[in-house]
């Protein structure tokens, strides 16, 4: 068994002054909250963008109030132009994937809870940590600038395929400075992410408290650790991709742009580049990225579930190995985004097999979660509802992957709404459910107050049913061949199905509105919520052994000693049916792992 050695001396002094305490804080908890706040702003922005898209899709000539004042070029008279629709689409994807799904489950909760859960005083490199948040913030500012420049945001989608993204303003509106701002923003984001991952890895390797062996780490800690390993490789490849893109756009190089292109009646002054190079580099990042988006949520859900079931999972070791396998396999499958891209068709089969194989650890996880429910003492709270909802959504989103993993079926379903349904269910819903579960679970610890369970449950029900109403129909639309990224449907065969789109739009508006209940609950409870005890959920991991909210140095200068894994539920403990990790008492009546 691995033993970690003595805890290090103080990483930094107690913060003094407003700026040090709340703005340029070295404290991982503050930084975690800052990431969360940024993700909150990004997710509501992204959600409103999606509303605009859905409204426009169903009522193309709708005059949206206020919009022409915000962006006269993109929505003259309040009517969204086709190019502005694509800008909304691009910014929606970029904000959601980078600033929400990489930030919230990973950077926000990971920063806040990883050090505490391993018994450390802070992250290994608090200064780098602070830098990584503010660099992320800078990336967000640069991205949002695209909204205010006259030509507007780019129209190439979050995937920014070359040569559309590489040639500059000839490619269309928003493709001059808008596209450049995108490239710069994402490059900055890569640097921030690399710094963050570095911190997570070093901290997990080296700052575990005495007795905190790897196998005694909570499952969400494992998820953050594995995710940071994936992120290190992934962002290290996206950064070069963006650099090459910026060079093609501004320095006249031709990494991605071949010869003889005539765009906007101009023969482009480039030659020899490869559009497929962008796709390979981007998806080599892009596929691990989606696992970066979901693994932390899997960890959070596992963590919340164990607590809610009042018994350990069937095997936490298997969960850990499954998460590791997913991480490992995620690097072998990127070509499944490129089956029809013109790359060697033989390679399609080479990518298809690991893609199908990833189903194995994903199924193992699902069966472990399901099997752990059996014989449990399931407690229903807002947090556990979202954890259970995650399982449902993960399955729903995952099974559509069977189809897309097969190149022959992908011939038909590629670039249709089937794909949109698939990735929204796994990323947009399942991953977000993990964030919700984590929020309801950890809010008491972070703020010292309880959230309203009533509002939480209302939020759950509307979101859960609403998300199915929005995204399940996308699969059906995909089956009939509804192509994606269209601002309106002029094809003859689509006319009979516009009613489905209307239904989805209404569901999206209602489900989106319910998120304001969540926002209200967050803000109201922060100030007026019932005071929270240190351990409101009778949980075992180290974060519940310290006050709510924790002091600046987490453990008050003490060095915790860990005696158990975090799965000691359903046992005869001195405080109830559980034994905390740092409690020296012997465990009676349960099997440790």
């Amino acid at each position, binding site marked *: 068994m691995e033993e970690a050695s003595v805890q290090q001396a103080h990483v930094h002094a107690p913060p003094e002054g407003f700026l040090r305490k709340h703005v340029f804080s070295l404290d991982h908890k503050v930084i975690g909250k800052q990431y969360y706040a940024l993700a909150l702003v990004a997710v509501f922005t992204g959600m409103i963008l999606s509303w605009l898209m859905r409204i426009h899709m169903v009522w193309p000539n709708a005059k949206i109030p206020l919009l022409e004042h915000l962006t006269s070029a993109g929505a003259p008279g309040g009517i969204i132009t*086709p*190019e502005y629709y*694509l800008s909304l689409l691009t910014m929606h994807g970029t904000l959601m994937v980078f600033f929400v799904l990489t930030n919230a489950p990973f950077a926000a909760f990971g920063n806040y809870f990883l050090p505490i859960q391993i018994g450390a005083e802070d992250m290994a490199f608090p200064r780098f940590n602070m830098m990584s948040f503010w660099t992320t913030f800078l990336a967000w500012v640069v991205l949002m600038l695209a909204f205010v420049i006259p030509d507007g945001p780019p129209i190439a989608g979050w*995937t920014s*395929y070359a040569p*559309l993204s590489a040639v500059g303003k000839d*490619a*269309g*509106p928003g493709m001059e400075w808008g596209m450049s701002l995108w490239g710069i923003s994402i490059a900055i984001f890569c640097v921030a992410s690399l710094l963050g991952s570095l911190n997570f890895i070093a901290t997990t390797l080296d700052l575990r408290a005495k007795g905190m062996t790897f196998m005694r780490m909570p499952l969400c800690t494992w998820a953050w650790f594995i995710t940071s390993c994936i992120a290190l490789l992934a962002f290290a490849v996206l950064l070069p991709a963006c650099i090459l893109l910026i060079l093609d756009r501004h320095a006249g190089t031709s990494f991605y742009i071949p010869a*003889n*292109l*005539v*765009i*906007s*009646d101009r*023969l482009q002054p480039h030659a020899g580049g490869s*559009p497929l190079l962008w796709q390979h580099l981007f998806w080599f990042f892009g596929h691990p990225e989606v696992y970066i988006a979901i693994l932390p949520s899997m960890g959070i859900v596992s963590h919340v579930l164990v607590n809610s079931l*009042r018994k350990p999972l*069937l095997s936490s070791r*298997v969960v850990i190995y499954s998460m590791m396998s997913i991480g490992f396999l995620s690097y072998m499958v990127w070509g499944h985004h490129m089956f029809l*891209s*013109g790359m060697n068709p033989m390679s*399609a089969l080479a990518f*298809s*097999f690991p893609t199908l194989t990833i*189903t*194995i*650890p994903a199924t193992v996880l699902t*069966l*472990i979660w*399901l099997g*752990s*429910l*059996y*014989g*449990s003492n*399931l*407690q229903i709270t807002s947090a556990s*509802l979202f954890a259970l909802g995650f*399982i*449902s959504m993960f399955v729903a989103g995952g099974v559509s992957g*069977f*189809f897309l*993993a*097969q190149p*022959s*079926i992908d*011939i*038909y379903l590629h*670039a249709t709404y089937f794909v949109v349904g698939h990735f929204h269910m796994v990323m947009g819903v399942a991953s977000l459910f993990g964030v919700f579960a984590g929020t309801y679970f950890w809010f008491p610890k972070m703020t010292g107050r309880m959230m309203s369970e009533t509002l939480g449950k209302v939020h759950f029900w509307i979101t859960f049913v609403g998300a199915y109403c929005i995204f*399940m129909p996308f699969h059906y639309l995909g*089956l*009939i061949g509804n*192509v994606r990224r269209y601002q*309106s449907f002029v*094809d*003859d*065969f689509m006319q009979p*199905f516009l009613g489905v789109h209307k239904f989805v739009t209404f569901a999206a508006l209602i489900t989106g509105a319910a998120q304001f209940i969540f926002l209200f609950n967050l803000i109201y409870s922060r100030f007026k919520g019932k005071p929270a005890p240190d351990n409101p959920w009778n949980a075992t991991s180290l974060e519940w052994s310290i006050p709510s909210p924790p002091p600046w140095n987490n453990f008050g200068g003490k060095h915790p000693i860990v005696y158990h894994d975090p799965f000691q539920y*359903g046992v005869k403990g001195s405080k109830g049916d559980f034994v905390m990790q740092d409690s020296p008492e012997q465990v009676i009546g349960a099997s440790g792992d």
Partner: protein
Amino acid sequence: MGKALAVVLVIIALASAYPIVTHRFPLPEDISTHGHAIDQQLNDTMWEAGLSFVAAQVLLAFFIWSFAGRKAGSPLKNFPGGAKVMVTAAFLLVGTEILALGVLGQKAWASVYFTPPKPDAIQIQAQAEQFAFYFRYPGPDGKFGGLHPDKIDEGNQNYFGLDPANDVDSRDDIVAGELVIPVNREIQLMMHAKDVGHSFYVRELRIQQDFVPGLDLSVHFTATKIGKYEIVCTQLCGLGHYNMKAYLNVMSEADYENWLKQQASQ
């Protein structure tokens, strides 16, 4: 509330399956020779995916129903067999599925991509540009003229950049805005992108292939039914992407020959 969730899960599972089971969103009719294999594959996958989906939701619902809100002090139980059963089940279920879908699915893919076009396939060149498709036929001499990007002149409908003044082969090339083909003949579509990435998608033909600037790609297919079918662009190519389409016009052999003659005389 656990029981309510269980009920809702089952309703959602059944409601999700309903449109599939009742064929409310049917695939368009298959007018190709290779499409049947793809449809079969899709059907098989739908069964496996559909059953997995419903089974998982129902199992989740059943466990939530049974184990949420139990009396305090109810005994905890472990799923019989524990994690070993789950891991074994996952490997067996998914493993067989992978073999079945992966190995069988290979055939459908192979029929499109690993078989070369027949020697007598009709060669037609497709050019994708912002925001239209154009098609070029070699004309009576059977040869395509060269492409000269500097000669492209949209205003004068020289979409391909042909140079008939200096290039003999291009003098009889036929350029059309519609992809006109004879039924039951193999077509080899040579795909050329003029500006950015596009894609060629005909649902009924079960064909989709990206146009990649700088790459000479081709697909081959045989249409089995006369009629007009939409060709749409499926690779985001700019503001007109949603409106970028053309028609595949499948004619009888005789009508096709007439059409060619008509075009050639223009």
